[in-house]
């Protein structure tokens, strides 16, 4: 049985979040493209920067790639997991990457709030974003420990749910019976998506560019 809470969180919130992401990102890019920046603080603090940014970014990219793979090719993941050894390998790798993310994230937060120069360039949006990310990573690690074999059950029950969202026919029956911890992880994920366009996370949207293929020199003529 699905409560109003479940419907609101798993059938309405995802659309609100993605709609906000698209609308605000596009509008922000069109009218305020100046504000699209990673807002790097490497100039102000250059030593801890390495120990915070590198683990966090590599960790979260790996974790995100894992979620994406389970969504895109659930069958392949399930057949990979059919041998226990391979399942353990995947789970341990995922957990290690999540811990790496958490280490980087904590280093980022400590770095930011113990350095007086960095406090000056920290905004309320940064604080909210850190809170959301910490919650997301901590619940993720907790799920991996308390409800293991997520690579299998994600592919079996969350992938169909996410697909139902994509075809605009949300089927929350996969979700309603899930433990609260997993529900919170999913809800917070939608919150991150919805909050995304208001933060420095927009730098992710502007990574793809033809740098690797373009000529080294760029020349612009007036009026071009």
């Amino acid at each position, binding site marked *: 049985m699905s409560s109003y809470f479940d419907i609101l969180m798993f059938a309405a919130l995802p659309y609100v979040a993605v709609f906000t992401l698209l609308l605000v990102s596009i509008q922000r890019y069109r009218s305020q493209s100046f*504000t699209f*920046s990673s807002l790097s603080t*490497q*100039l102000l603090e250059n030593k801890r920067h390495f120990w915070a940014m590198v683990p966090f970014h590599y960790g979260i990219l790996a974790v995100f790639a894992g979620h994406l793979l389970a969504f895109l090719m659930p069958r392949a993941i399930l057949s990979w997991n059919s041998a226990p050894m391979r399942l353990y390998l995947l789970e341990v790798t995922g957990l290690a990457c999540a811990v790496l993310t958490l280490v980087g994230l904590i280093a980022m937060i400590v770095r930011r709030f113990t350095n*007086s120069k960095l406090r000056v360039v920290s905004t309320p949006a940064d604080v909210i974003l850190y809170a959301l990310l910490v919650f997301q990573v901590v619940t993720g690690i907790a799920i991996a420990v308390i409800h293991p074999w997520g690579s299998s059950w994600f592919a079996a029950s969350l992938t169909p749910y996410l697909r139902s969202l994509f075809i605009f026919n949300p089927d929350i029956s996969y979700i309603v019976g899930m433990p609260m911890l997993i529900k919170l992880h999913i809800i917070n994920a939608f919150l991150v998506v919805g909050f995304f366009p208001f*933060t420095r996370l927009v730098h992710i949207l502007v990574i793809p560019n033809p740098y690797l293929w373009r000529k080294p020199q*760029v020349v612009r003529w*007036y*009026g071009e």
Partner: protein
Amino acid sequence: MNVRSQISMVFHLDKCIGCHTCSIACKNIWTDRKGTDYMWWNNVETKPGTGFPALWEDQDKFKGGWEKHNGKIRLKSTGKGRIIPNIFHNPNMPSMDDYYEPWTYDYQNLFNAPEGPDQPTAKPISMVTGEYIDIESGPNWDDDLGGSPIYAANDPNLEGLTKEQRLQLMSIEQLVFFYFPRICNHCMNPACVASCPSGALYKRGEDGIVLVDQKRCRAWRSCIAACPYKKVYFNWFTGKSEKCILCFPRIETGQAPACFHSCVGRIRYLGVLLYDADRIEEVSNLPQEELIDGQRSMILDPNDSHVIENALKNGIAESTIKSAQESPVYQYVKVWKLALPPHIEYRTLPMLFYVPPMAPVMAQQKAGGLDSISENLFHDIEEARVPMKFLGNLLGGGQEGKVLYALRKEKSVRWYRRAVTVGDVDLETAERMLKEADCTVKEAQAIYELTSLCTFDQRFVIPPAHREEAIEALKDPMEHKQGTGFGFLSGPRRGL
């Protein structure tokens, strides 16, 4: 031949008095904003010295510019593929400690301090945090500190000097220094542009000014590391790179850039150079000792009918070609070969050239008098207090020859003028010197006039930008009326 026009510069170091007026003019116009407070798009360094940011010339440390790699050139820091693993943390980026923490003073305390036994003081306050700080360095911290064991002794250009030469530079009655004003070189082969993952940096086609598109910069920070001259700065507040814009709003309206306009010693020259853009890659890749000649050969003769024809074909305006024909920079760089590019071994092909300083050379004299005539009239140049090797490292691409050539010519012109005006040396000797220095009487007269008597209009030959015509060609000028300015509706700020 792909003729391109560039507004280029000559700084005559023999005339620089180190007054920093240029730096202040620039500061007041462009970098008096939050986040840009530590930037000095124009700064004046004392040489020998460590410069700003400290040791910027040490490319083992900062990894700026290009290097040869498997027969081609590549960025020393993070070009192409190497940007991917390094994008989260740039391994070669200087931190604010390499520049300085900008500060102001607590002036209010002078008025508000409670009555007490001591005079109140205005303590320094960080312009970043607003807290009291101890000032540890500044943008011209080693100003006039020639002979300093901390600064002068650590100048990266001392590489290759003998122990005796280094000691000589430090000995108390032999102390010597000269000034080295620096702005962005607006290079032909800029490393900052080539390093930008976003493609935000670009070189303007019409005049070669290198700019950062503020709306496309995403703070990947590659340009800061890649520029070997450390002339791209990171705005710590807006999260965008900023650099010298050669006062393009002034240039487009026919005015000299602020640092040029305000120069007290009149050391700065500005004019058009035409060059062959097809040869950038080839020349950047030459062996180090051929780089200066290579770059000179790229600079085209604006009076050559073949060059003019190709320039017109490329859409370069006739007024710009005429401007190139009158360019003081062309005379100094190509015709007289007096002006040299700084550190061309970084392979960015800088378009700012320096006439090497002669004053400290001439100052070195034995007790016998100012200039004793010997068989070799140029002997004192090579015995100068500033060793040729040092100037060669700075301006000669590691070679002394080009610097020596320029200094010999400078000295022969000075000698010639002395024979003409003072008359205490005979004209015959002076003319022999000119000949030995590869100079004619006519050329000497021209060098003298452009160096000593130059008017404002001779120093700054700025071509009309023809912006109005370019606008008319594209749209109704009335429609453009709303589109002028920098295109910002609100002041730049951090994030959304």
